[in-house]
């Protein structure tokens, strides 16, 4: 709905140790993120899946994102830039 915030549950381990499996986070809905922000976005390869990764580089078109647990992450190294229209928001609080 129109709320600018959203609670999301984390599944998987590619963002460990920052985010753990089963953890909840509060995200702010926005397309703007800085380097180092944790971004929540639609999987560029599968519309219905939501992913969470960290912004490693910015470009005019979008973000290059990488998982913190770098050896166990499927991220921009595989699917390339996450375009702005795919971005849902960024993590502003972890519970």
């Amino acid at each position, binding site marked *: 709905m129109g709320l600018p915030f959203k609670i999301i549950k984390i599944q*998987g381990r590619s963002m460990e140790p920052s985010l753990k499996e089963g953890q909840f986070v509060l995200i702010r809905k926005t397309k703007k993120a800085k380097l180092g922000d944790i971004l929540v976005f639609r999987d560029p390869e599968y519309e219905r899946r939501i992913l969470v990764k960290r912004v490693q580089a910015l470009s005019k078109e979008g973000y290059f994102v990488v998982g913190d647990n770098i050896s166990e992450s499927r991220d921009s190294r595989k699917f390339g830039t996450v375009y702005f229209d795919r971005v849902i928001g960024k993590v502003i609080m972890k519970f």
Partner: protein
Amino acid sequence: MNPVTKILNLIDKFVNFDIAEAHCDVPCGIYDPHQMQVDAHTIIRMIQLMQNLDKENPEYMQTYARYVAVKEHHAENLKREVRVLWGDYFKPQHQEQFPELTELVWDIMRTASQARQHVDMEAAKNLLEKVQRLAEIFFETKGKSYAKLPAPYPTGETIVVQTN
């Protein structure tokens, strides 16, 4: 678990918060409990071959050493297979459904080390029995039926396979 997470978990049961996936490498969803059973069978078979090896055979040392190397390789491989199932496939809800799961995995790891370090048929058979239990749990969580059948290997042991 902190109190906020507990409350959010409770709310989650009613409202189902969206899930953001932080999955590892390619989330292919392909897991199988077959290979760890093959590894356990190989360990048993290597011990059988060691026990039956003729000490007068001029190649005794080389052959025995090769059996040891193969046995240890498969014990390590088994541990790897179990680690992947445990870390990537099994989830907290499976643990709730099968409270023995954690203890079973630890047990397998310890028994696999024992089977690797020693020429111990009891440990090897024990290991096969435990990985078969893990295979049964795997098929249960998948909602698949399974059976323990005589394996098509010279070990004379069984194997747990999917039947539907």
